[in-house]
């Protein structure tokens, strides 16, 4: 019926995303295969449209994997790659362990209270990311609030700032709402009679949880995990402010290559490598769990 008209509405946003989202990726890919001439644009090779097909052939022949070769030769990039995935993976696991009980706890509350609690979990997400991470610097720094509190209790001070532990803490803090919400969405929809049935049939509360509640919440677990893991793997602000110079993460490497070293092809190559690691999680996210967060 009016379906045909409705789909016309996709034209403008589709075009927008094609120009500002999809097409730029091709530019990143192209630049990662280019050589930097004098560390600033233009980069070689350049596409000469006026020469037609010969121009395109020359252009393709000029592309090479030199930048990638340079990056794989340097331990730094490989280390950053591995540690990005490791840190994001660990943080995702911690988020699940912390987020699940919170989401589950909220679903046990009376409906009116539930809405307010969900609101309370979302609210920090609306306040600036940068500010929330900044708040942790004041807590974690050597002469910060944490050590002041520990000193007051007669305990020895700890030095957490500029460590991987601080990065994990910051990531868990910043992404907690993203984990709790999808979990809550699936847990809330679950029929409480299923657990009651399991209990009536004699299973313990723990067993009822593992055989009924948890398996049914797997779509939420997947959605939350992907929703957190993907952006965390490329995170810049948290490792930069809390991680100090030792914590290597790809987001930060891209930033440094671009802003400090002005090596655009290297920054692009690292971006392509990061994207390569994330393609599978992103596709998974779009298939199934994308539906949960709606």
């Amino acid at each position: 019926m009016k379906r045909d008209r409705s789909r016309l509405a996709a034209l403008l946003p589709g075009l927008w995303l094609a120009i500002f989202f999809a097409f730029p990726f091709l530019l990143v890919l192209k630049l990662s295969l280019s050589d930097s001439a004098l560390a600033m644009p233009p980069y070689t090779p350049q596409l000469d449209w006026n020469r037609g097909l010969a121009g395109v052939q020359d252009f393709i022949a000029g592309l090479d994997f030199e930048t990638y070769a340079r990056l794989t030769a340097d331990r730094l990039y490989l280390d950053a790659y591995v540690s990005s995935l490791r840190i994001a993976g660990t943080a995702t696991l911690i988020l699940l362990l912390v987020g699940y009980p919170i989401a589950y706890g909220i679903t046990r509350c009376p409906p009116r209270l539930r809405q307010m609690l969900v609101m309370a979990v979302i609210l920090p997400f609306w306040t600036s990311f940068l500010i929330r991470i900044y708040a942790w610097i004041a807590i974690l720094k050597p002469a910060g609030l944490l050590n002041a509190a520990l000193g007051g209790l007669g305990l020895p001070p700890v030095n957490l700032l500029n460590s991987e532990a601080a990065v994990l803490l910051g990531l868990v803090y910043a992404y907690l709402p993203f984990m709790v919400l999808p979990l809550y969405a699936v847990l809330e929809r679950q029929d409480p009679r299923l657990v009651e049935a399991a209990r009536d049939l004699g299973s313990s509360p723990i067993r009822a949880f593992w055989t009924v509640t948890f398996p049914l919440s797997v779509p939420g677990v997947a959605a939350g995990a992907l929703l957190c893991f993907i952006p965390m793997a490329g995170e810049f602000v948290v490792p930069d402010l809390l991680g100090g110079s030792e914590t290597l993460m790809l987001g930060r490497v891209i930033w440094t290559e671009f802003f400090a070293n002005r090596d655009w092809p290297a920054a692009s190559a690292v971006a392509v490598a990061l994207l390569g690691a994330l393609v599978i999680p992103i596709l998974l996210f779009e298939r199934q769990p994308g539906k949960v967060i709606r």
Partner: protein
Amino acid sequence: MRPSAFNIAAVVLGLVFLYTPIALLILYSFNDGRLVTVWSGFSLRWYRALLHDRQMLEAVWTTVRVGVLSATFSTVLGTLAAVALVRGGRFRGRTGVAGMVYATLVMPEVILGLSLLLLFVAAGVARGFWTVTLAHTTLTLAYATVVVQARLASFDRSLEEAAQDLGAPPWKAFATVTLPNIAPAVAAAWMLAFTLSLDDLVIASFTSGPGATTLPMRLYSQVRLGVNPEINAVSTLLIGLVATGVIGAYLIQQRRGR
């Protein structure tokens, strides 16, 4: 089912974890001293200092303009995308549009920022206010789409069809029946887009140019120098502003929803 002690503990501890750092940040913005660990009395001096910080005020003004413009663009585009995705059935390009929308949601900001920058360089556009606005529109479009989409999916289409049966042209039926109904979601989408734009450091850093320093960029350059009570003061104002907006929007939506 009644919540167990464990349930209550999990929720309470979770909220304490989420709110303690923010509460401390706000508290120390009213501290008279420069140190963040020693309380030396209540004072508004950091707020006064803020009023004389021209660069900070300029950054706030830039950020607000970018936020309003990009949120408006992305809400319009996002609403269109939502209409097509919810009602368009299976059309060619649907997977492409939906795929790009969901990919933007999770794409690391560094990659988005870098790729947009390369686009602007390739197009030969001077970077500044407008490039940040375009970049933020792209970033927030996906969020706006998802928010409107959720509401549109639960909206009873027969109301709009009734209007059309009574002789209203499709666009009029949409504007007079559907749009007022999804208005809370559209408003929420705008708010979300505005907040995200207000908050973004990474994409703005890549796509901005001289004379278009946004507040997060300004804050970031100061944060790198260390903890400073003036940052706490700006942050407190920002948190207050956003919290008022969000809670207000929530209450409006609640009332409309009934």
